[in-house]
């Protein structure tokens, strides 16, 4: 499986934020998108997810597993918002997304266990702390299978332990042949991701991630 973006350009409100973007990720590879605030990281992720029109270029998934030929359908998108209803319990929320997304992977209880929310599933989502909310949303990625994960600042609000656990989850996903694309300001603890630095003035450059201070 290969996710290929060719000559991608995107913008907001009629104005181009980046253009001529190329990258190719095969299964087990991760891409980190970094850059200053307002550079267009979230915009790029939303374009890959098919939530925004691209101004130019192509994205395609080569050799995708059956059922995931379409890029949108192959992606899990974890945005800034958690996509959970505050009045429903965590379990109700997750069970809904599992049924809705289909292709169940692990059970809701198991997923909650993995994000250390095992005994909190019965609480209304509104009752969770910020980090717990984020972890519950991360559980959403686990309960239905999708080969590509699109993550927008996934670790915002997580404590150190959860951050490491989440890195573990991402590594598992990569090991299983998945792809991870994450926009972030913080190191994510991945082994050797590609990095895409968005300059905030249309400049884009790709490099290998090196541990930063």
């Amino acid at each position, binding site marked *: 499986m290969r996710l290929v973006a060719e000559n991608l350009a995107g913008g907001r409100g009629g104005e181009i934020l980046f253009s001529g973007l190329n990258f190719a990720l095969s299964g087990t590879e991760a891409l980190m998108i970094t850059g200053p605030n307002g550079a267009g990281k979230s915009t790029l992720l939303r374009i890959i997810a*098919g939530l925004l029109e691209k101004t130019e270029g192509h994205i395609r998934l080569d050799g995708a597993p059956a059922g995931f030929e379409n890029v949108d359908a192959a992606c899990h998108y974890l945005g800034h918002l958690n996509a959970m209803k505050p009045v429903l319990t965590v379990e109700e929320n997750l069970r809904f997304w599992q049924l809705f997304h*289909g292709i169940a992977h692990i059970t809701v209880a198991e997923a909650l266990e993995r994000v250390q929310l095992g005994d909190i599933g019965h609480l209304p989502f509104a009752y969770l702390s910020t980090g717990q909310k984020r972890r519950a949303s991360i559980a959403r990625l686990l309960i239905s299978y999708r080969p590509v994960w699109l993550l927008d600042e996934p670790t915002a609000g997580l404590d150190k332990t959860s951050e490491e656990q989440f890195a573990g989850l991402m590594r598992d996903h990569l090991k299983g042949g998945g792809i991870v694309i994450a926009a972030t300001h913080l190191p994510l603890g991945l082994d050797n991701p590609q990095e895409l630095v968005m300059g905030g003035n249309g400049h884009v450059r790709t490099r290998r991630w090196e541990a930063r201070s």
Partner: protein
Amino acid sequence: MLSLFLRDTRLGLRAGGGMLVGILFFLAIIAVVPFGVGPDLKLLGRIGPAMLWIGALLATLLGLDRLFQADRDDGSLDLLVMASERYMLALTVLVKCLAHWTTSVLPLVVASPLLGLFMNMQPSAIGATTLTLLVGTPAITLIGAVGAAVAVALPRGGLLVSVIILPLTIPVLIFGVSAAYGAVEDPAPFVAPFLILIAITLFFTVIGPLAAAAALKSSAD
């Protein structure tokens, strides 16, 4: 899809006052219209179906503006739109409309026979009105869904949604009311307008979700 329906009805019942407000409207009409009509019970019975229809129309509007807005605010809408490969987005819209109708309009249809009694309507008129409401109100919800989808890009579309859709709901009202009268008054036909009403509902069952889905697709940003 069943899961979406269940979630939305559950939300509607747990959090929203939609159901209640619909019935409040009926109460308001019953409390207020007799003042205008005076003690003339016959007249009251005559305008009963029209009043029930107007009440139902207005009650359906309430809360309709949040049909997609709520999902957009918490990010669910993105995921619903992204899933359009698996489920046609129009189907998702249809299911959401169905859930909205079940939680906020159906109670009102169920309550309408009781209100008919208060309005001194004949049994046949009560039956006909309830039937036309049952058949016609889904069309209003579906038309409203288009308005709600158009306004979802607005942070608080409220009034605008109602304004856009009210003129479009007028045909539903006309045929609903005339079918209800057709069942009671002799010269007026019942079957013809009733069939038209069904046709309108079926038409919007197809067109409404498609249009709303198109609007939602282009609104995501």
